[in-house]
């Protein structure tokens, strides 16, 4: 085992602490960063001086955000906490594992498949970032636009593509395996099928306008959708021409759909002796210029009529609309000469995406996930953009494409943390990791488990769930974590407690508290994890058997976990650990789980205080 050195970097939050004392207590040697075998540095890699980072390249180094863990209070207490944190980091550094980054170089080529402005813009942006791009258009080149787009606009964008973009037409992506850094795609061309590998894949499936399903069914001969409306064809005579424009009424109505309906109403109202009644559920004016447009339409004479859900009824012959005027509270009828139905953008992800054997954890509802923006999907390296992702035609699609391109570029150039190491001798080929990896990183190919090279976010879910201890992102194996728990708890003073804190929530909250001088219980050991899902039953029970009086797991709120359901796994496993504890005569309250966000430090402080009290009750 290599000897571990402590490299101490002064920074805010560490004032007054004695590095030598901390090193001694933790059983490591204090070093100025000179010759080392393995090291613990008291700051993060980003904050450390560049020269030090370069010097330590290739050594087993644990970057420790010590200031985030120590907190305030009397010096002796802070000194003890610092020593325990250093010991914890040293525990795994002593095993000598290095962060093995990019053992396989990620493929830099990008596949953009689909059609429309989003596809062309994504190809353009990815090429601008230096990636070779294959733009596989489903259609012939001249008709590359989606049904809801202006063909000229898309044509212009196509003409402006840089040379690194190879464009093929009439080609569809029919199968996709792998994840970030190494995708294997099957492309169906007009004549033949080909297989090709890519580092990242952007899907921009076709989108179109469609009339929402909950529209009233008026007579066919007087009804048409907005996209088929030619306002110039209409004008009244001696009798006014009565037109009804029906904006999206249901709960899914969007501002884009509303704006389209209002635009149509305004155009019709401008015609001679035409009176438009605009039916709407809520005036969805939350779009750029939406309120102005709505005002202009009313000023032109459009009659805006709010109807409650289900409040717009049609006569049997489909020629009379009945509703209650919300202002007068009276029933009103209208026999329209023309009914214009609004439309919403619709688009679907390709059907094969829903196949759980091809991609893990894809879910149509994910677009609302706060951590899956920029077109990201649950599968790392795979993006879904455009109308299928709810983006309206034009600038919103360009914006989504730009964001997705930047994101995939980040991934392919090193933002993915590591490649999980698989120990084939232990692997039972049970495929648990393939099944549980929230990011689709782990594939089974050529008789063994093959993780993609630039996709793993080191969430550790696979490690927590693997029954054979065969897979772990570097630095996060059971062996390393247990060693660090053992060393940390041994060095901890007073009543021992363990806080497993997700770096996306719990650790941010802890850091804010520490830097604001919060005084933690003396014996509290913080264990940062990239996702609470790393904390399985085993780690919790180990923490207890190594002397912790209580364990708290802090993960993100439901629906906010970057690894989708790592937090719920953690909650489940914490519950199991508590049950096991109860079965052997322990107190289940010693194991707790909490949902937390980075901006909820007070909740964390309170939960830790309560845990300390429970542990102290014995």
């Amino acid at each position: 085992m290599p000897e571990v050195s402590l490299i101490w970097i002064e920074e805010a939050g560490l004032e007054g602490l004695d590095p030598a004392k901390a090193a001694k207590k933790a059983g490591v040697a204090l070093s100025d960063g000179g010759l080392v075998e393995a090291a613990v540095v008291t700051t993060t890699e980003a904050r450390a001086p560049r020269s030090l980072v370069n010097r330590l390249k290739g050594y087993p180094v644990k970057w420790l955000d010590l200031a985030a863990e120590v907190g305030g209070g009397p010096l002796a207490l802070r000194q003890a906490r610092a020593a325990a944190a250093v010991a914890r980091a040293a525990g795994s550094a002593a095993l000598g594992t290095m962060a093995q980054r990019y053992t396989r170089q990620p493929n830099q080529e990008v596949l953009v498949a689909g059609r429309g402005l989003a596809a062309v813009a994504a190809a353009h942006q990815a090429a601008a970032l230096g990636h070779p791009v294959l733009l596989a258009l489903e259609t012939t080149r001249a008709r590359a636009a989606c049904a809801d787009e202006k063909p000229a606009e898309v044509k212009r964008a196509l003409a402006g593509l840089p040379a690194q973009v190879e464009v093929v037409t009439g080609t569809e992506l029919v199968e996709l395996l792998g994840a970030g850094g190494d995708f294997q795609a099957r492309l169906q061309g007009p004549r033949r099928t080909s297989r090709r590998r890519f580092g990242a894949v952007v899907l921009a499936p076709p989108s179109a306008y469609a009339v929402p399903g909950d529209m009233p069914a008026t007579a066919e001969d007087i009804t048409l959708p907005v996209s088929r409306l030619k306002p110039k064809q209409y004008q009244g005579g001696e009798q006014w021409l009565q037109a009804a424009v029906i904006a999206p009424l249901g709960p899914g109505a969007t501002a884009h759909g509303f704006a389209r309906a209002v635009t149509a109403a305004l155009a019709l109202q401008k015609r001679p002796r035409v009176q438009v009644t605009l039916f709407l559920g809520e005036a969805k004016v939350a779009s750029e210029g939406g309120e102005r447009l709505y005002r202009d339409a009313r000023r032109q004479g459009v009659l805006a009529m709010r109807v409650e859900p289900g409040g717009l009824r049609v006569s049997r012959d489909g020629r009379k609309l009945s509703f209650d005027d919300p202002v007068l509270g009276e029933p009103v009828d209208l026999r329209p000469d023309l009914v214009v139905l609004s439309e919403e953008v619709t688009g679907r992800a390709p059907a094969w995406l829903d196949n759980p054997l091809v991609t893990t954890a894809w879910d149509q509802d994910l677009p609302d996930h706060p951590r899956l923006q920029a077109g990201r999907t649950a599968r790392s390296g795979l993006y879904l953009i455009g109308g299928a992702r709810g983006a309206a035609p034009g600038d919103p699609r360009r914006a989504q494409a730009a964001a997705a391109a930047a994101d995939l570029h980040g991934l392919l150039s090193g933002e993915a943390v590591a490649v999980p190491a698989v120990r084939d001798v232990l692997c039972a080929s049970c495929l648990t990791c393939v099944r549980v990896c929230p990011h689709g990183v782990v594939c089974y190919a050529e008789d063994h488990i093959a993780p993609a090279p630039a996709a793993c976010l080191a969430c550790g879910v696979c490690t927590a769930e693997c029954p054979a201890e065969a897979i772990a992102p570097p630095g996060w194996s059971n062996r390393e974590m247990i060693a660090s728990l053992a060393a940390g708890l041994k060095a901890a003073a007073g009543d021992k407690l363990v806080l497993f804190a997700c770096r996306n929530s719990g650790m941010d909250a802890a850091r804010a508290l520490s830097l604001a001088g919060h005084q933690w219980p003396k014996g509290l050991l913080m264990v940062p994890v990239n996702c609470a899902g790393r904390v399985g039953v085993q780690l919790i029970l180990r923490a207890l058997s190594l002397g912790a009086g209580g364990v708290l797991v802090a993960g993100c709120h439901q629906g906010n976990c970057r690894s989708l359901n790592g937090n719920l796994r953690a909650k489940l496993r914490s519950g199991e650990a508590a049950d096991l504890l109860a079965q052997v005569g322990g107190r289940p309250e010693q194991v707790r789980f909490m949902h937390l966000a980075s901006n909820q430090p007070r909740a964390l402080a309170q939960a830790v205080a309560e845990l300390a009290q429970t542990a102290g009750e014995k």
Partner: protein
Amino acid sequence: MAVKTIKTPAVIIGGGVAGLAAAIDLSRRGLSSLVVERGPRLGGRVADFCCKATDSCVRCGACRLADLVRRVAARPEIAIYTSAKPVAAEADGDGWRLTLEPQRNNGPAPVVELAGGPLPRRSQVQAGAVILAVGATPFDPSAKSRFGYRRVPGVVSALELEGALEHSLAELAGGRDPRRVAFIQCVGSRDESLGHLYCSRVCCGFALRMARVIQARRPGTEITFFHMDVQTYGRAWAGELAEMREQMNFVRAMPGEVTAGPGGPQVVYAAGGRSQTAEFDLVVLSQGMRPPVGAAALSQLFACTRTSDGFLGSDAEPVASGAAGVFIAGSARGPMSIVESIEHGAVAAAAAAGHLQPLVREAAHA
């Protein structure tokens, strides 16, 4: 004393979520940047927002700030000056020359957690591109005096409620335990009389999320939601809204005024064609956004245009400013949510990188 000149490809004015997102995306594109933040800390408006999750995350986006800060910290290409603002700017060849002035910030120094720190002295910056990410300004509800803000006890702004959500609401309600809470929407938005002919887009969701938090913490609290139209987007809202309509009292009417009553603020509103009065413990005014306070000065400084709503930029293009090499990011361009501001920051970064590309190439050849 010699004025120091900092050379950087891009300078970003404003360290809110849009500015930080732009800096990250520039750095992903291999371009360094300098973020100049007037205040003592990064994050802008979002740094004051708490989590509004109840049973589960309600997708407010506030915790995205921590993600951004972590990523900024991990990227040495991003330099930061807090407590600094541009006081002069001139177009200089293909780029811009800015003069930065240190700002005095009252109150306790923030916890410094990133590389960089307060601007020590007046400095010059030479940059190829400028991104203005100065944010929008919240509407001051006292400009709508009939709603009683700062006149009637128990009338507060949405931002004040936000600030108290994690602490005590009773203090806001003048010591009363708030069991009856009213929200009044569109205060300062959708209002032609103020020249604000736009919807602020975030305040409906903001108010409803806070209402949910209040009900979750104090079950049985009566919530009344005075509004004209509900603006929420995203698939998840459809179901949530239906639930909220059961739990809260949605009143589709803009109140006429708020007056002081014996038991708390009283809201005068119309129902059934006549004026009604209802008493509450707390009345929350959902203020919207208005163009950044410094918009006029900034548009003069950088020769950039304003949208028809008075924000920075132009109606026709999402991030262009009318001035070569100057781009707009985030809510300085118009009302947008946190998530939208982050995406907009990415677009501004892409545009700035496009502008810088020929310059970078030239420099490589020279």
